[in-house]
């Protein structure tokens, strides 16, 4: 990293917005995933112009750039795989405009997901995409990963709620795509940039749709003594055409860890639970809740509870949303997968995951968006044992391969990042990569933005940029 770059960045942003000491940089080599890579510099822009100037400097010095929100990503997306300068958007966290009439909010990328809802809930509105990390993750990170959440089932993922973006291209050019209305002539560029994992442009402003709160909501907790029963229930709820707002599944074992944290009254002796929420007009909610309950009972639910009030409902959701973290109580480390399968294949997929777990000698937790078929098998392991880590990775690959065999995909919401990029050929052909690479190169020709992500290193896109980062830290921390 050239010293003059540091000097220029310091004078551009002020020293309080630039980190360069190793003791600071080591705190940006991790995110929520198991991956690691250290940046050479970390900078904190406050405005779009800052971002543009930083990118111009990066171009001048030919250093790679990676964006970062809160670093809760689960695919290593926000890690500086090629070293270089990391742009942390956390200080660009102003809500720029609330247009309640048109149900739109214009925000900077560092705004925390839940803070959008907090700012508009007084008007009966909310921001629908609700990743379980929503109290920490940023909207910029959500846009980059096209984040989903439990309520994605009914309301769609981030892309369905973004109408316009302000972007800065790698050369520093500031561009806008989409419009407040969301309907613009021409290609759906918003649709392309959302979910591009920070590999095409950096996002500096986002216009999001706000959703009106439903008139009525019912949250059901169905308790099962067999995982098969729970997965059959989900398959049948889907097949019957009942569209809950959310339909989440947690296995009994994980549930105990959650219960330790939350004390929500989750049973400690179940095989699995489903958390199903129905929303809408009172009449619709009544009917749907009854239908869901009926399906649960048909599939031998031991008990179906309905949350009595908002507090009970909040508690159930708090349990679900903290599920990943709660697994930290069970093992020092875990590896979260994100495969997707057709919902009709849910029962067989869960069986297969269990047998893969057995084969490698792991306990595999399952906390996932069942209604979407978005699995999150979680392999628990002890990183102090390198063999366990190897096995965890091997088991994970086998599970992902199986998802693809069933007609599914590698990742439903966490993104490919630097974690699943080598698995991409399971789904995509050389022609597919060739086109994706052309699109990539159209915006990020030198792979200066977030190199080493999405594409397998062998399929072009900046492999040269990704220097082998010396593992300076033991894997166990």
């Amino acid at each position, binding site marked *: 990293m050239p010293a003059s770059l540091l000097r220029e960045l310091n004078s551009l942003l002020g020293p309080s917005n630039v980190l360069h000491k190793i003791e600071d940089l080591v705190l940006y080599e991790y995110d929520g995933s198991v991956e690691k890579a250290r940046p050479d510099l970390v900078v904190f822009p406050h405005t779009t112009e800052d971002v543009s100037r930083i990118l111009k400097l990066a171009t001048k010095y030919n250093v790679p750039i990676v964006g970062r929100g809160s670093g809760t990503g689960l695919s290593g997306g926000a890690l500086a795989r090629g070293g270089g300068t990391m742009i942390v958007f956390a200080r660009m966290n102003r809500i720029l405009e609330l247009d309640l009439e048109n149900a739109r909010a214009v925000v900077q990328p560092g705004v925390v997901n839940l803070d959008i809802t907090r700012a508009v809930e007084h008007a009966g509105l909310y921001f629908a995409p609700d990743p379980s990390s929503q109290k920490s993750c940023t909207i910029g990170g959500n846009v980059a990963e096209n984040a989903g959440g439990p309520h994605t089932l009914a309301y769609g993922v981030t892309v369905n709620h973004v109408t316009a973006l302000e972007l800065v291209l790698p050369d520093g050019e500031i561009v806008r795509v989409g419009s407040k209305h969301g309907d613009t002539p021409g290609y759906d560029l918003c649709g*392309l940039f959302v979910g591009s994992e920070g590999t095409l442009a950096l996002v500096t402003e986002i216009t999001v749709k706000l959703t009106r709160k439903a008139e009525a909501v019912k949250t059901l907790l169905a308790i099962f003594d067999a995982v098969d029963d729970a997965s059959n229930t989900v398959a049948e709820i889907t097949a019957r055409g009942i569209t809950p707002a959310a339909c989440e599944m947690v296995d009994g074992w994980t549930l105990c860890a959650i219960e330790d944290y939350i004390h929500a009254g989750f049973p400690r002796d179940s095989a699995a639970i489903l958390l199903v929420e129905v929303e809408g007009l009172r009449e619709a909610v009544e009917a749907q809740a009854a239908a869901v309950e009926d399906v649960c009972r048909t599939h031998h639910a031991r008990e179906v509870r309905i949350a009595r009030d908002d507090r009970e409902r909040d508690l159930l959701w708090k349990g679900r949303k903290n599920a990943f973290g709660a697994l930290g109580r069970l093992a020092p480390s875990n590896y979260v997968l994100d495969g997707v399968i057709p919902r009709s294949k849910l029962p067989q997929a869960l069986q297969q995951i269990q047998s893969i777990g057995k084969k490698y000698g792991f306990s595999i937790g399952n906390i996932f968006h069942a209604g979407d078929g978005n699995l999150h098998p979680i392999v628990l392991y002890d990183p102090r044992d390198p063999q366990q880590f190897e096995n965890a990775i091997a088991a994970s690959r086998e599970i992902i391969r199986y998802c693809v065999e069933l007609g599914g995909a590698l990742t439903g919401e966490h993104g490919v990042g630097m974690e699943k990029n080598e698995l991409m050929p399971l789904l995509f052909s050389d022609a597919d990569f060739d*086109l994706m690479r052309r699109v990539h190169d159209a915006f990020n020709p030198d792979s200066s933005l977030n190199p080493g992500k999405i594409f397998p290193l062998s399929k072009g896109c900046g492999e040269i940029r990704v220097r082998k980062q010396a593992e300076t830290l033991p894997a166990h921390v």
Partner: protein
Amino acid sequence: MTATANLATRLESVLGAHRVVAAEPELREYAIDGMVPGAIVRPASAQEAAEVARFAITEKLAIVASGSRSKLDLGMPPARYDLALDMTGLHEIAHFDPGDLTLSVDAGMPLRQLARMLAEKGQFLPLAVPCCETSTVAGALASGIDSTLRKQYGTPRDFLIGAEFVDGKGALCKSGGRVVKNVTGYDLHKLLIGSLGTLALITRLNFRTFTLPQAHGGQVACFSNLEGASAYRDAIEKSGLPLANLETLSPEMVAQTAAVLRETSAEFAGRLDPAKWCVYASFEGNEAVVPRIARDLQKLANEAAAAGSEILDAASDAHLGGILREAFDWLRWASPAVALFRIALPQSNPGDLANLLRVAQDSSLRAALLVRAAGIVHFTLFVESENESALHALENAAARVFSLAGAGHGHATLLHAPSKLKSRVNVWGPNRADLGMMRHVKHSFDPRNIFAPGRFVGGI
């Protein structure tokens, strides 16, 4: 034009004679704004479509893909038009998993046929677009034409989950997949929506499907002026009632709709008052929800001092809804020449609408206004012939509509215009700042510019 007399012969040598047509009368059926292709090719598979693309690359030909050709008048005429690629030969269901509510279907599948097949399993695809009797699924998607179910089910962006297509290098590519949630790789399939065939030849589309509602109904409420109708609409939006569709018709639009309606039901047509502004709301759900919404709407209409309001039973709702779904189709033939604008406004406030009507008044043009759901306005100007003064009036009006829409932070395009107007007015409106990025996208998909050159925004 590169197409020469032996173009068809050379094509035949690649694909076989039965796939190629070069007879005059048929060629004319594929004309776009008077431009006639050099040959028609009817591939029967994605591989054949890819071969045509590769042929076009070597021969430097321009291809315009089409389905049922019901909306070839969208966009600008192509700059070059050598091959008409008729995709209706690709019409299989590749995959349908009713238990997963996912579907993979070939590009040329007619929507009507698809709907029937899905309905057998109690499902449907919420693409309620005009010309639905003939439209193909890929044609509907690539045209970007509005679905009248948009309010409830969104645009294809919300339910297209993957696609297979031939890119401009003649390679078979795909993006997305067959599962309802997926962030693996770039969402290139989203770019195909509304791309008017300029990026790729769509060969197959994957969708999530939806369950057919148990019941549906509608309401028509009339108001003596635009303000009343707008206030009613606002009240409905604020109430949070879930509606499948919500449209406001200006008196002229009511008259035109009644005229179409009269062909099938004079009695129903008689109930629409062409002196009034009408708000049509359509809603669906279970047996309890539909009457509940009807009740609430009647109450809101009363509070909004509607001059009259009527609940439509399922049959009448389907009838009127169907006619409005087809509005684009019949409006464009409603007079000898028509300019049909599609205007997206952040907020369809009465002021903007009144300004549009003023444009018509100022140029003494008959105009119909249809305020659709989700802030989309269809504004139609009718002239009695394509003579110079009429074209001049339309040209001036278009300039004003484009600038009005821009001032309201929206934008306008011309969905339909007389061919002669298209040589004076770019139907896409003024270029936007993101044109450069669009060109990047076009170039990466279609580096040799073989797909529908010149049809799209900014000359793409």
